[in-house]
Structure formats: C-alpha cells, structure tokens
C-alpha cells in the first residue's frame, strides 16, 4: 500500500506543484553520491527523512566539483537548494563568511553535537560559535589494502606492521613478478599516498606542523625530507601503466590478485564487495603503521543555504537531525564504506575494517584531520601540484621542500 506522502514524494520529482501540497517539509538536496554504492547510501538518508515526515527532492550531480559549483551558483543566483553536500573541509568557509548559510544551532544543542562529534569535525562545522553543517560520515583516505592471494603467491606470511616491513613485502612481490603497488597515477591519488606517508612516517606532530601550521622550519626539516624520500621510493613499485589509471581499476588489480598493495580511501571496500570479496578472507586493511597510528578524518557534510522561508528552515532542521541520527549514520556508512561520525552507535552490523576504524576512533589522541581542514582549496591544490610533479619527475628533494614551503606561504 502506497501512503499519500510517499506517492506525493514520487510525484514531486515530476511535478513541482505536488510538493507544495505535501504534508511534511520539503527538502531539495544537492549531492554528488552518484555511483552504485553511493546512491544506495544516500537512499538510506532519504528514506529516513521521509519516515520522519518530510518530502525529499533528490538533485544528484556527478562529480564533487561540479555539484559544488552548481550549489554556489544557485545560492548566488537566489534559488538555493534546501541543503547541499560538501566535504568536511574549508570548501564552504567562504559561504559561511559571506553569511550565505543558515546555522542549525538548536538541533546541535538539542542533540549535543559538542560532545558527540570528534574535535576535528567540530573544528570544521563550527565557525565562530555557530554550527553550519551536519556531518554525515567519516572517511579515512589513507587505508593500506592488500590482496591475500597476491601476498601468499609472493610468500609474504604476515601483514606488514612497519614501513620497513611494507618495503620488504613490496620487494618480494616484485621478485614474484607481481605488481607490488597498484596505483592510479592521478594527482589526487598521488596525494593520498603522500598523506599516508606523511602520517605514518612523519607522525602526527610533523603532519600538523606542515599542514596546519605551515611551518617553513618543519617543511625544511630532515624528518620531512625523509617523508618525501619514502614517498618517492614507493613510486618505484608501481607498474608502467599506472599514470592516468582510475582508482577502481587499481583496486581491481588487487581483486584479481595481480597486485599486492593499494593505498586508498575506505570507499575501495565497495569495489571489493561488488566483486564478492570479503575483508579478512580475500583482502586485508591496514589503518596505519606503528603502535598507535593516526586515523585520518575526511568525510561529507550537509550545509544549509540561507533562507527566510519558514517551511524551508523547518526542513533544514529536520534534515540536520535525521542525517546525524545514529541509525541513519550506520545504515549510510554500511553502504558508503565509511564510518559514522558519532561513536555511540551499534557497529555490530558493519564490516571488519569499519569496526577497526571505529575502535581506533574511540582513542581521541589518534584523530587527525585531513589537509583540507587546515588548508584553503587553493593552498591544497598548489600542494597537490607539487606532490604529483615530484611523484612523476626526478627532481631534487630540496627543491620539493622549497616549493612546498613557498606554496603554503600564500
């Protein structure tokens, strides 16, 4: 039996007029969750929103950059969506400073966001004492994945626990005629490897000094030089077909057992799952090296463009509450491959890797924000250009250090 609300919601996609007569508050949401797993994930939020009595109007736009520029153009043009997806980063800071977003302070206060969410997430969503975004999930973009079949073939008995053990394993894979490191040679993927090395080899202190403080002394230091050289050393383990490869094609190399390792975000789990591979049985996930490696926090949020329409404000508040509710967060993350932002959830239905992540997140000292939280999109891009140039070109490491210092000084 189709209820009138559901019927109207379905119809609302075709007939804009219907939504106006719907009972609940109508929320048009712009997001870029368009791939198979992603759209299954966002469906969980829309279902929860409808169950809470609202009317969900889905505006999915492929590619984050594209979706964000549509959002910004519509806000500037005076026809903003009710809510829009951004990454947990400085991407929407300009919107906040221009006074173009509504805050959701009363929802945040009622639900106790202050104590519920990790410090690194609060740092992004809370500007000058007001909450401007509802966090949906946490991704860690620096997981180290490995194919159990490939490692077995190369005679690597145990999963590496240090960077040196990783290099030893890579050497054995190379000797066995396999591709040691499956890598997609695109700028953003080069930068994921860089971030992983900075966190694991440099440690949280150096990481923060470089990316948060943009400290020229730290960038010129011997420790950072070692990070860069380790990063460059990893490049010698990729195959010649790597440049330009898509990340999921690299993951496929692990799935077919052609390659040993890949450094990639936890969204890679979706690819393994599609191929019918199970964590711990077919592939392994390493969150980092050392006793207590940091957990790199990235993720998605909803922001709420400024509006005076009472009905729309109601919708914004309802969505903020629904998207951060424990059940929605778990359901969403199971499909998305991420983990919930709040720690007070029942994680028993999540996979082994996600549970590993949730366990790590319980230790506050291991939280580490991704670079985009500290850097403007512009600085982040300038850094990315240098990192990808260094990965692909032979240049003195001193020049790279100097270039990074100059790029972050802006």
């Amino acid at each position: 039996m189709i209820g009138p609300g559901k019927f109207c919601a379905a119809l609302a996609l075709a007939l804009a007029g219907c939504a106006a007569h719907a009972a609940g508050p109508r929320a048009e949401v712009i997001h870029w969750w368009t791939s198979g797993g992603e759209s299954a994930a966002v469906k969980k939020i829309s279902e929860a929103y409808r169950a809470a009595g609202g009317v969900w109007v889905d505006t999915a736009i492929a590619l984050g950059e594209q979706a964000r520029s549509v959002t910004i153009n519509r806000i500037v043009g005076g026809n903003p969506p009710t809510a829009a997806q951004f990454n947990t980063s400085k991407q929407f800071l300009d919107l906040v400073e221009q006074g173009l977003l509504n805050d959701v302070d009363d929802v945040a206060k009622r639900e106790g966001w202050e104590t519920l969410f990790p410090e690194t997430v609060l740092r992004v969503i809370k500007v000058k004492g007001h909450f401007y975004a509802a966090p949906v999930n946490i991704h860690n973009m620096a997981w180290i994945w490995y194919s159990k079949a490939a490692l077995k073939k190369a005679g690597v008995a145990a999963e590496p626990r240090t960077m040196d053990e990783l290099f030893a394993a890579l050497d054995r894979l190379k000797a066995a005629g396999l591709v040691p490191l499956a890598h997609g040679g695109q700028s953003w993927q080069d930068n994921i490897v860089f971030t992983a090395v900075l966190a694991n080899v440099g440690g949280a202190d150096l990481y923060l000094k470089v990316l948060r403080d943009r400290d020229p002394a730290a960038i010129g230091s011997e420790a950072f030089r070692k990070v860069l050289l380790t990063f460059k050393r990893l490049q010698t383990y990729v195959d010649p077909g790597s440049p330009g490869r898509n990340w999921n094609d690299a993951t496929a190399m692990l799935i077919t057992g052609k390659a040993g390792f890949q450094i990639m975000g936890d969204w890679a789990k979706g690819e393994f799952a599609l191929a019918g591979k199970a964590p711990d049985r077919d592939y392994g996930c390493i969150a980092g090296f050392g006793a207590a490696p940091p957990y790199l926090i990235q993720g998605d949020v909803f922001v709420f463009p400024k509006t005076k329409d009472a009905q729309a404000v109601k919708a914004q508040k309802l969505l903020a509450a629904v998207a951060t509710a424990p059940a929605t967060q778990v359901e969403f993350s199971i499909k998305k491959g991420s983990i919930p932002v709040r720690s007070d959830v029942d994680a028993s239905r999540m996979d082994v890797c996600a549970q590993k992540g949730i366990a790590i997140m319980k230790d506050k000292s291991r939280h580490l924000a991704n670079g985009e939280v500290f850097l403007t999109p512009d600085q982040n891009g300038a850094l990315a250009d240098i990192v990808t140039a260094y990965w692909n070109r032979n240049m003195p490491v001193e020049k790279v250090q100097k270039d990074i210092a100059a790029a972050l000084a802006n």
Partner: protein
Amino acid sequence: MGTKLNAIRRHAVSWTAMLPMAAIVIVAYLGTALWTLRISLSSSRTFPKDDFVGLAQYARLFANDRWMLSLENLALYGVLFIAAALVIGFLLAVFIDQKVAGEGVLRTVFLYPYAMSFVATGLAWQWMLNPEAGIQQAVRRMGYPEFRFDWIVDQDMVMYTIVIATVWQSSGLVMALMLAGLRGIDEEIWKAARIDGIPKWRVYASIVLPMLGPSVATVFMLLATAVVKLFDSVVAMTQGGPGTASEVPTKFIMDHLFGRANIALASAGSIVMLLTVLALVAPILYARSRARRPREAA
C-alpha cells in the same frame, strides 16, 4: 531631399538589424572581459570581492611552476599542431583532388573525426596509447616483445601524444577547407602548366599554394583558436598528467575557477591568455589591413 531621407531610413534599418549583435558583443564579450580584468585585480576567492590588490595575482601566476609549464606546453603544442595539421590536411586535399575513386567516402572518413566529441575519442586514444592495454601490448603480442610505445606515460613525450590525437581530429577539417580552395583554382592554370611541361608537384608548390592564401589564413585562424582553447583532449587523455607534464593554461584556469575556489587567480590567467591571443592576432590583422589598402586606393 527625398533621396537623403531614404538613405537615413536605409541606415536606420541596417542599424536596427545589427543592434542585437552589437549588444551581444558589447555586453557578453567586452563586458565580461572587463569584468574578468576587474576580478583579476582583486583578492576574490569563491566570490567576487570589491578590493584592489594591484598586480598581486599576476605576480603569483608567473611565480607558479605549473602555470609556466602550461604556457611552455601550449607553445610547443601550438607550433607542432598547427604545422602538422596544415601539412597533413593539405596533402589529404591534394590526394583527393587527384579525382580518386570513392572521393565521397574518403572525404567523409577524413572529416568524421572532427564530427565526434573529443571526450569520447580522447578516451579511445587513451586506451590505444596505454602501454599495458593498447598499441604497445598488441605489437608485443604479435611477436615483438621489445616494442615500446609508452609516450602517454612519459613525462617528456606526453605532449606529442596530444598533438597526434588532435591532428588526427583536425586534419579532416583542414582538408575540407583546402579542398574547397583547390576546387576554386581555374582549370586553365592546370592546362597552361601542362603545356609548359611543369611537373605537378611544382604547380602545387609554386602556383596553387600561393593562390590558396586566403584558405590557408582561414585554416590558420581556426587552428590557432583550437590551440588556445585546448582543454577537452587533455582532460580526456591525460588529465594533465603524468604529474603535471601535460598541463595547459585552460585547465589551470578551470581548476582555479571551481575546484580551488580562487576566481581572482583564474581571471588573471584568462586575461594573460586574452593578451597572448591579441598579441598574436593583432599583427596579422594589421598586415591584412595594410595589404588591402593600396588595392582600395587603386
């Protein structure tokens, strides 16, 4: 008296007819160009800002390694692409001009690449050039295990792959325009040359080619604008990589306009490109107007 009124009326009609076009030029082209210039002198990020920072964005632009590399790449690409497309397009036109059988089919085949979106054909090129999936692998399987063709993953050769792919795409258009020019050559010239016993290639090189001057100029302008606009082929084939080896100015501008939320720096890049184009086009236009003037006087 009556004729004067008629002239005014005639002028009024033609002016009214031109008004929409003039408005579009002034508002859409000049207006946005001026607005871009204004933004490039500000410290705007995601949104336009009203402040004034002088030439700071330009200083930053020219201190940026990626931008400088983009300009170098574009210069190298421009010279090779225009030269190769002109030569190949002309040769194809000459070939078809020999009254070959199946001319219609061949013309279509040569022109077809131009009709297709480069986003699609660029992906096909990417696969063909990929050392592990494309030509290299195919030739190796045929029994030449030492064969190497991995330009697209090579820092120093990647720009040449873009030249190859875009020449493939554009030379058909050059052919079509050149062929139209060739067909406009008076048959009498050919007859006279035959009687004088001048070899065919010599007629093409010394007589026909100079007569094709206007066609060549048109083709040159079309190719030159394609060079400045170079974007989709890079995005489809290499995404600027490996690393930053095949970055071009338009991609730099697009990245900063949207992904990197720095419209001031992107605007500065656009203005630099506009000035470059003007610097290249102005001498050509000037030379043309000079060439026309004596004839008008005569």
